[in-house]
């Protein structure tokens, strides 16, 4: 199942090389819809109890280097997998309607990017994760560089160099983690489930944490390392922008929850305040820039920085509520950003510009488009009743539980969001229609892509519990590493001081019990259960 979800996009792209150029777009759409269908089936049949991994795939891959092909899905990743498939389906369908140049290469690159992204969400082997994380950049480089607009070559090289600085350091960090814990784990292994049981010494954790944080913060992007974002957003073709802004930034946030906190718990506590301040700075700076810029893409780029700042805050509140809110908010933000980019494309088509000073009055002749846009805008500013509101509420609750001062300042971010979101809506939809602009209603072709995405926002607003109930246990499980001696190494029952756990988190049961629930020990042969002589 997971292997199929992982492999279908790139396989579809490869087969596309054999097809006539005319139909390759529709073939890719078919493939994207198939992978979406699989993802829906995965979510429908998902059992979230205990937050353990499901549908585990574990194959030997590079035994000499300790790398295994391990896939698995839990409450953290299951909705991100669905989200990835959904946005890719939208992007591929949109592209197929536009008929790009050199379609075989284009759709292959999209497929490769999807496989790499899904690989990040599914990987349970640290090296497989890093590999997929780096691999995402290759198709992105081509998509921006070959099909982008404006100063695209400079923008794409800037983006790649920026993001690779982090990712390659992360590669060293990942290898160091595996090699340095080899004595404890009994042989080099990159398996996340094993590595989190054997935390490294504090000092080692600190520098490896810095490498990982560099990779994820650049990707997110967070303030200070966001230099590539604006150029990339300006040059990126719009369907790809949906993916860049919607999904790829979430990989970074997910990486913090999946890898950094469980595997480097001491460093996460040590650097908690630094990361919270970076998140806070991202919110303030992103919001401030978003309501001074006039280009629509710039506005969305900076608002994304602000939104990702919220997610960072939620994660590094190191509390159950904050984590839950971040997982929900990741999905929310992606669902909001994707239709906004499509609407930007529609507006640019109708007015010939992406500058809000030259726009206006679009609502007059296009009420349906305006209605869809207002739904998206309301979601972006997290109006009560939207899923975004729930997400931000959870995040702020988590931060209030740990750092009150930061939570107070961060709350202002919600007000800022209302300001820039409404400004964007008003300047494009209200006011008189400028000369030369053409206020047309949504066509059927455009509606086919846009309406389902907006429907998802509405559906999630009605029932945000869909995600939080399933994510909860897995978030708790990730944060359980922060408890003192969470696993009771060597088979001893966990000796836990309640006060040492993050708010709302219970320590995990002793390893034997985990193994009994179908944990990783049974199939890695590593881990304390195996070390203690418990038959796997």
């Amino acid at each position, binding site marked *: 199942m997971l292997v199929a979800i992982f492999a279908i996009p790139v396989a579809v792209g490869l087969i596309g090389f054999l097809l006539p150029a005319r139909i390759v777009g529709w073939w890719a759409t078919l493939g994207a819809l198939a992978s979406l269908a699989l993802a829906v089936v995965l979510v429908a049949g998902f059992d979230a109890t205990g937050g353990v991994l499901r549908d585990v795939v574990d194959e030997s*891959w*590079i*035994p*000499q*280097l300790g790398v295994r092909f391990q896939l698995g899905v839990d409450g953290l990743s299951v909705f991100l997998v669905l989200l990835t498939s959904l946005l890719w389906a939208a992007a591929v369908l949109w592209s197929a309607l536009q008929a790009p140049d*050199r379609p075989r*290469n284009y759709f292959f690159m999209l497929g490769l990017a999807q496989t790499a992204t899904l690989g990040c969400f599914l990987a349970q082997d640290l*090296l497989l994760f890093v*590999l*997929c994380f*780096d*691999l995402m*950049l*290759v198709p992105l*480089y*081509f998509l921006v*560089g*070959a099909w982008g607009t404006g100063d*695209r*070559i400079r923008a*794409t*090289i800037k983006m*790649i*160099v920026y993001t*690779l*600085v982090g990712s*390659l*350091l992360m*590669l*060293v960090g990942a*290898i*160091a983690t*595996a*090699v*340095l814990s*080899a004595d404890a784990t009994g042989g*080099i292994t990159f398996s996340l489930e094993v590595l989190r049981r054997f935390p490294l010494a504090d000092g080692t954790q600190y520098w490896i944490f810095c490498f990982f944080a560099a990779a994820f913060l650049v990707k997110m992007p967070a303030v200070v390392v966001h230099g590539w974002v604006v150029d990339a957003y300006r040059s990126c073709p719009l369907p790809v922008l949906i993916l860049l802004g919607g999904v790829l930034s979430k990989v970074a946030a997910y990486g913090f929850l999946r890898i950094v906190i469980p595997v480097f718990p001491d460093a996460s506590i040590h650097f908690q305040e630094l990361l919270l301040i970076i998140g806070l700075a991202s919110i303030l700076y992103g919001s401030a820039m978003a309501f001074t810029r006039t280009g629509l893409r710039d506005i969305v780029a900076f608002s994304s920085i602000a939104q990702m700042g919220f997610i960072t805050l939620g994660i590094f509140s190191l509390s159950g509520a904050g984590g839950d809110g971040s997982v929900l908010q990741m999905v929310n933000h992606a669902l909001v950003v994707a239709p906004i980019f499509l609407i930007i494309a529609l507006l640019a088509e109708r007015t010939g510009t992406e500058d809000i000073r030259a726009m206006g009055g679009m609502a007059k002749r296009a009420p349906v488009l305006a209605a869809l846009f207002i739904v998206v805008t309301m979601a972006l500013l997290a109006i009560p009743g939207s899923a975004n509101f729930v997400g931000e509420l959870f995040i702020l609750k988590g931060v209030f539980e740990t750092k009150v001062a930061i939570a107070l300042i961060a709350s202002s971010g919600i007000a800022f969001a209302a300001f820039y979101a409404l400004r964007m809506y008003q300047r494009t939809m209200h006011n008189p229609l400028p000369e030369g602009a053409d206020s047309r209603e949504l066509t059927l072709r455009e509606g086919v892509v846009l309406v389902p995405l907006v429907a998802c926002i509405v559906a999630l607003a009605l029932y945000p519990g869909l995600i939080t109930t399933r994510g909860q246990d897995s978030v708790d499980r990730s944060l359980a590493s922060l408890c003192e001696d969470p696993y009771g190494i060597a088979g001893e029952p966990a000796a836990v001081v309640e006060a040492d756990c993050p708010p709302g988190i219970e320590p995990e049961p002793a390893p034997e019990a985990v193994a009994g629930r179908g944990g990783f020990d049974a199939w890695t042969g590593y881990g304390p259960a195996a070390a203690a002589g418990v038959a796997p």
Partner: protein
Amino acid sequence: MIETPAIDYGALSPIIALVAGICVVLLVGLIGPRGRRGLSSALTLATLAAAAGLLVWQLGEPDADLVAGALRSDGLSITIGLIVVAAAALVVPLQLRDPAAEEAGFGETHTLLLGSVLGMLLLAEAQNLISFFVALELLSIPLYVLCGSHRSRSRSLESGLKYLIVGSIGSATLLYGSAFIYGGSGGATDFTAIAQGIGADLADDPLVLIGIALVAVGLAFKVSIAPFHQWTPDVYEGAPTPITAFMAVATKAAAFAVFARFFITALGPSADQWQPALAALAAVTIVVGNVGALGQDSLKRLLGYSGVAQAGYMLTGLLLGTVKGIDALVFYLAAYMLINMAAFAVIAVRERETAYGDDITAVQGIGKDRPALAWSLTISMLALAGLPGTAGFIGKLFLIEAAVAGNYTWLGVFIVVGSMISLVYYLRVVAAIWMRPAPRLAPAMAGASTEAAGEPGLPRRTGEPGRTPSGAPSGGRCWLVLGAILAATAATVAFGIVPSPLIDFSAHAGEGLASMLGPG
């Protein structure tokens, strides 16, 4: 104890096959007319195939000391031998339409090529100061000639002369260093005897240390480690492209083999002294090579500098002195061979098809009309940069894992910092392929290249009297070349996804060296 030299013909058989092949190819080249390139190439390939087959057979045999201990056939020598032979086999089809081979004569070119291969095989097997030096010269001298074999092109002659001078200085330094080591270790020439002679007492003896430094410098010239790399871009640019490809890959492989064998077995007692020094050299090399490549417009110069940087990565594997480090080094060499052969072959093809020589303009816009070449060069560039999905990524992963395990984590960081810098110039090439339009000037296609080939602005003799049109270097598409390019590219990707066979292959090298160190 008196040793009678027992001759192990089995272990010597690859060498014997090569020597026989050299004689046959030379004779065929003498009796035939100039145009007999097909026969000479076929015989060369047959020789290489025979050598490869015998090497593979030897891989399963136990390690053996040959020729009274002057040579040693073990996992290291055989894996390196196979890499060298494969590189030569990929060069032969490239030579088919090469103007340099056309001018110098196919028989002679191929004889020299095989001679150099023989030198490399012997160098990888050498475990004695004498055979070490003799093999190094046997490797180098044919290459000096081959670099200058495009006689009508002044750059080629310049390259040959430059290589000769620099190479001789390197050899002389090495020889001088060997003399110090011979003296310092109490008159030993065998590698194991040197190790015993140095022992724990003489490990930081000035005489020995001077010897080590000089030998390291001599070898650094050969594998182009900074600051002894200055000749590399010039020679690479001037030499005929197939020869550049061979030099870049095979020389490096053979020289690294003996570098590893000599330093780890003979100079093992002084490891604490040379390890930090080589680590510093590796770090400097990585930075210098990658920064040097940044502004290059000539693809061959670019790959020359990139080769310097790669030598820095490889040196990391060597200086660790661990089995894992050697495995990683040999894996990296094998991957580097595949990647570089594909890249140089694409450059050679474009040199013949366009008037731009090896300038980056020659590959601009080929994504549109030459997808096979474009994808091959793209994958090569991404693999050299170490992006995932290619053997280059696994190579770096292997090296970094070995470096961290060998307590040289900081060198691992240097490797990735180098990779980051390198992306700027590798991606520039990829951008030229896919994102820039083809140059205005129509490419000179089949047949027309005699007028247009060669760098613009350089005087070039156009055609010789009496040369038939069919004998002229043709820009026509050669399926054999394309096949070689695609095979190398496919292998690059395949070993990037399923690297285990290549890792198992390179593991022979570490075993071989470990067995030489033996129980003692």
